[in-house]
């Protein structure tokens, strides 16, 4: 009973935030609406990565590849074929998940750093093909001016579309996180050998997690196209993959919402600092190193720790 009450209470701020976000575009300038939409897309991407990294303990080093596959599938269907637009919205995440399945099948046979190495080479393979296949993808120029359905082509329209998709995805992700599957995955992260010993099929769980995560990365790719109306190979370069990694770290690996916070901080910092100096990556690097030294659990993880400590302290106080 108490637990139920506690949960409802902890969801209140989330609902309040959602309502604020619903009404925000009416009062803020267009640029900030766009920035918020970018934050949502990046947040979804970081959350999807954290499903395998934070919760699954897998070294998914090249997550941006799947983000790119989703975005490119969307862009190619919209520009090169005359299929109805809704097919692109469905097919792109599926294409991502298929790529995830294919790469996952190779990778789950390995562990830790070897897993990461194989993944980064397979992801780079996809990147290299897209980067070089000029006739299909226009190579490093990317594809620009993708026409979207009129409902979501305006800044506000795309904002609301992205917000709704994000919320639906987050609810599904939370359900997965709390489901027996999610709990098993976290157990595998903490002790793969023991899980194997009690009869859990570790590889299959990891593979399913990769497929789910890459599916969500594909959705993020679709949303990227909705925001920007263009795609380019840099969005799936391995450097960006490590930046997503950094967002997860910044927010907090082992929390559910942390990566979202990390993405929000990174995107807004990039936008604001980037407008003052061209040496943005220098500052990014310094932030990252400070983070590793002083805040390894991430911002969200740090806050939750403080809250827990305080709650514990007050309970102890009452007992006295």
């Amino acid at each position, binding site marked *: 009973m108490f637990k139920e009450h506690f949960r409802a209470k902890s969801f209140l701020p989330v609902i309040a935030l959602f309502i604020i976000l619903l009404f925000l575009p009416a009062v803020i300038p267009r640029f900030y609406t766009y920035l918020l939409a970018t934050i949502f897309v990046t947040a979804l991407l970081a959350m999807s990565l954290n499903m395998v990294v934070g919760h699954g303990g897998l070294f998914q080093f090249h997550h941006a590849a799947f983000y790119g596959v989703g975005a490119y599938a969307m862009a190619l269907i919209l520009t090169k074929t005359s299929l109805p637009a809704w097919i692109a919205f469905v097919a792109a995440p599926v294409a991502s998940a298929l790529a995830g399945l294919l790469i996952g099948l190779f990778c789950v046979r390995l562990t830790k750093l070897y897993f990461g190495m194989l993944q980064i080479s397979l992801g780079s393979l996809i990147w290299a093909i897209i980067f070089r296949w000029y006739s299909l993808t226009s190579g490093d120029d990317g594809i620009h001016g993708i026409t979207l359905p009129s409902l979501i082509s305006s800044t506000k329209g795309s904002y609301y579309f992205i917000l709704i998709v994000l919320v639906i995805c987050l609810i599904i992700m939370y359900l997965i996180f709390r489901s027996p599957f999610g709990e098993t995955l976290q157990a595998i992260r903490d002790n793969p050998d023991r899980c194997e010993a009690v009869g859990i099929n570790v590889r299959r769980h990891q593979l399913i997690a990769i497929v789910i995560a890459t599916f969500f990365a594909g959705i993020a790719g679709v949303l990227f196209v909705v925001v920007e109306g263009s795609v380019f190979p840099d969005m799936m370069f391995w450097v960006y993959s490590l930046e997503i990694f*950094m967002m997860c770290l910044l927010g907090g690996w082992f929390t559910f919402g942390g990566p979202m916070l990390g993405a929000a901080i990174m995107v807004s910092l990039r936008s604001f600092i980037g407008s003052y100096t061209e*040496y943005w990556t220098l500052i990014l*690097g310094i932030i990252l190193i400070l983070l590793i030294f002083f805040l390894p659990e991430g911002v969200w993880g740090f806050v939750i720790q403080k809250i827990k400590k305080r709650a514990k302290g007050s309970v102890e106080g009452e007992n006295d």
Partner: protein
Amino acid sequence: MEILQSLNISAIGSHLLVGLSRAMILFIVSSGMSLVLGVLRVPNVAHGSLYMIGAFSAFSISNLLGGGSIGFWMALVLSPFVVAIISFIAERSLFCHLYEREHLMLLLFTFGLMLILGDLVKIFWGADYRSIMAPVLLRGSVSIFDSPFPRYNLFLLIVGPVVAILLWLFSNKTKIGKIARAAAVDREMVGAIGINVSWVFAFAFILGCFLAGLGGALVSPTVSITLGMDHDIIMEAFLIVAIGGLGNMWGALVGSLIFGITQSFGVLFLPQFAIVFPYLAVVIVLTWRPKGMLKSVW
């Protein structure tokens, strides 16, 4: 048909030589990375930045000395030391506090270092393309297999094996090399018998970075020196180390040969998709032998 026509012996021979000389550069850089990976267990993402700094400081040193042959040789000797000094500072001030952390943290730390070094290079040298001339002795080309082959590449084909032999001598015949190899296998045991593991690590790290700088200085006459060369080399070095076997120096050599040769033959067969072939080779090797071609120290 066009492909078949180009498939004569001389074309294959000259591509093989180009691939081999590219493999020598890759070997020098990736053996440094392999050393750091093997002894310190750190996947050093900043290795590519140090390679870039090696190339840029080679440019500055040779320019400072008038850009002639002497300038080049001095640059070749001095710029690895510039890189070694930078890595020494980074190691003693930051890195050495983090060895107990997990791999993922160390990887992200070196990623941060890469971002910082990349921008520092931009501040010091700017975003222009730079180039330096090879010394007179190594300019021009010689005729091998009836086709011209640059002399500088021949020089690389000599330097690569020399570095390999020196590294082998270091790790098998010197005391600190043996300690480093022991520390790679069991660092606690090495510490327990009274050896200062921290300094062994520092030495291995600096030597690895020295090799990155040497690779950068060696490559500088053959490419245009520019920002972004760190991104390309680091991925290649990582994959070479992975297919060779983490921490195995000979593995780095095997991996470099696979990488360099598939790259140059990719140019021969399918120029547009040449960069795809090495990645494909990595996938095949890792699927066939998940732990790399040779024995890994991990």
